[in-house]
């Protein structure tokens, strides 16, 4: 039992802490992807990412338990639901919001998250439920380090999604069009790109991404309306530290926060958030647009 400490000269089990941090960090990174995706296309920084993910996960839960669908089918249906749901949010709510100040989208998405929280609580209640894990089985062991299969899967999904999204933005016409919209809306319109459709697509993709995240987090953190609260805050911070428009930035930010959480959580669990945010402020003071973000030129 004590082998972990006796093998390592310092009193910290660094290997395991790092692995735990990476696992936790990939959850943050995954959630941050959705935020980055939506910000990239619509320039709206969403505070509702956690709640849309939670809501989608509840939908998945209903499909699994009430309709008794197999996991894969429920997974795909949930993705479809989330995509449509996100697009609807854009079309019904955000399209009618003036984005002349940063504050407007912030307030509106906060409002949205409150509505989703309340509605989910009303429909499904606040009891804590378990959500089936997509993988089960004994944890993987590397010397003294243990990795659960779910953590390994999450990490893998993060890397795969990052690669897929990276390729999407680099090579597909739609992805390039989304980047164009992000850079210059007027010019993009003059290319025949429909801004409305791109915005809806950005929200749809971001929300679907959130659904994936939710379904990976729920087996670990359980399912209840507030399941994403802490994760979403950290993901938000991860997205900002990474630079808001950069997918690799979100991964770097997420993993960084995960490792901080893991190490600080081991030493002084009371100060998890405090230390994380002190570091964030330091990072931002040195690089005001995040680690991998481009400096946005302020318009006069």
């Amino acid at each position, binding site marked *: *039992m*004590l082998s*972990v*400490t006796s093998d390592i000269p310092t*009193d910290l*089990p660094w290997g*395991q*802490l790092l692995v*735990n941090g990476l*696992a*936790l960090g990939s*959850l943050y990174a995954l959630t941050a992807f959705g935020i980055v995706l939506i910000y990239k296309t619509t320039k709206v920084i969403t505070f509702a990412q956690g709640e849309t993910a939670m809501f989608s996960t509840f939908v998945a839960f209903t499909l699994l338990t009430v309709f008794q669908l197999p996991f894969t089918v429920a997974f795909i249906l949930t993705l479809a639901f989330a995509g449509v749901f996100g697009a609807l949010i854009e079309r019904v709510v955000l399209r009618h919001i003036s984005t002349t100040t940063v504050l407007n989208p912030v307030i509106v998405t906060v409002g949205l998250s409150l509505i989703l*929280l*309340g509605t989910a*609580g009303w429909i499904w*209640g*606040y*009891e*804590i*439920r*378990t959500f089936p894990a997509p993988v089960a089985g004994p*944890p993987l062991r590397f010397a003294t380090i*243990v990795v*659960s299969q779910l953590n390994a899967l999450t990490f893998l999904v993060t890397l795969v999604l990052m690669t897929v999204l990276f390729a999407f933005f680099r090579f597909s016409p739609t992805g390039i069009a989304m980047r164009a919209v992000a850079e210059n809306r007027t010019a993009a319109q003059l290319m025949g790109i429909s801004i409305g459709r791109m915005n809806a697509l950005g929200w749809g993709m971001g929300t679907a991404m959130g659904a994936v995240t939710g379904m990976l987090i729920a087996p*670990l*953190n*359980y399912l*209840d*309306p*507030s*399941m994403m*609260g*802490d*994760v979403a805050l950290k993901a938000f911070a991860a997205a900002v530290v990474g630079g808001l428009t950069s997918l690799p930035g979100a991964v770097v930010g997420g993993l960084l926060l995960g490792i901080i*959480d*893991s*190490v600080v*959580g*081991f030493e002084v*669990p*009371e100060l*998890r958030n405090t230390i994380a945010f002190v570091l964030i402020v330091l990072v931002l003071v040195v690089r005001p647009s995040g680690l991998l973000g481009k400096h946005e030129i302020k318009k006069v």
Partner: protein
Amino acid sequence: MQRLSRMQDRTVRRVALAVPLVVALLAVSCGSATPAATAAPATAAATTTAKPIVPGVTDTEVVVGSWGPQDGPAGAYGTIDRTLDAYFKMINDQGGINGRKIRFIYENDSYQPAKTVAAVKKLVEEDKVFALCGGLGTAHNAAVMDYLVANNVPHVWPATGTTALAVPLKKNIYAVQLNYTTEATLATQYALDTMGSKQIAVFYQNDAFGKEGLDAVQAELKKRNLPAATGVSYETADTNFSAQALKLQTSGADTVILYAVPKPGGSIIAEMGKIGYAPKLLSSSVINDPSIFQLAGPAINGMLIEAYLPPFDDTSNPKIVEYQAFMAKYAPKEQIGGFTEAGYTYGQVFIEALKRAGKELTREGFMTNLDQMQNFTGSLVPSLSYSPTDHAGVKAAYFQAAKDGKFVTVTGFITLK
């Protein structure tokens, strides 16, 4: 318009400055001169007139209040008030108590103390409740404790086990739940004497509840001149507990005592299982809900759980059969478990006190009868006693073991040594 007003006399400015301050201060001093204005009349009348006007009591009705979170991260506790509501409905269906129906008003405070204070003020001053039953939360009870004492509103079974409510004695507050200090001391004694534990670690919620548990464990160890236990804490907002599991493992403890609510409790057990750390586990009654089996997974097998209410699924117990029938009829949507069991029991104790207080219902009479309650066996609590000097309620607990998705009773009721 602006330019015009700028030419107005300067004195207006001075007056405008002086008026609000003077008026406000005057008003304040007047306010203090008549301190009896707000809360006093009802109670004053109650003690002097022949036929007393008791708040919340008519010939046909008695108003009872409660508060608790019905949303947010602590929203799962909302079940307690909803079960109480269902229980009072059942009593009303059976004709009420002494000719009076119960009107139960429970407020949602979202687990925020400022809202608790507002809720309690509304219940006491506007709804004029006769008594409170099952108000939830440690910080939340602390926020309204002085107010309830000052207004002499009986509060039966605050839903928290903090010792502060019973010690020192508050005349109108009847703690029922086994308090956290007694509970943790019992657990420590059992671990050391019966389970043969050599080194203990405590996983606790970093608040009054968890700290009280940790302190009691440390106190018992100190009394026996044993080394202190390693405390590993978590915050209520935390969702991931891998770091804490690792810390418990590196502490080298052979026994881990849990002072955690179901979600983190289940999660830490699962996380310890994942890293192959299998100490003896002992948990506070707070975790006692069937959901824990799902939350914790197979690693929970063998864990001992302290309890002061009988197992909610033990159908050989006639009281439990009755309880399950009630749940099926009046609260079919609620999940049977520790929370609903608690709500049901609060109701039983409250109704018993109401019955004993008789037709001429007054707060004083109600409390006098509670003070005289001796070895009451009519509730799920096997035996409950109060005295004018002791409102601590339950003092005995037993241990259950988790086995294949069920709790199996392993000891009888134990009291402190």
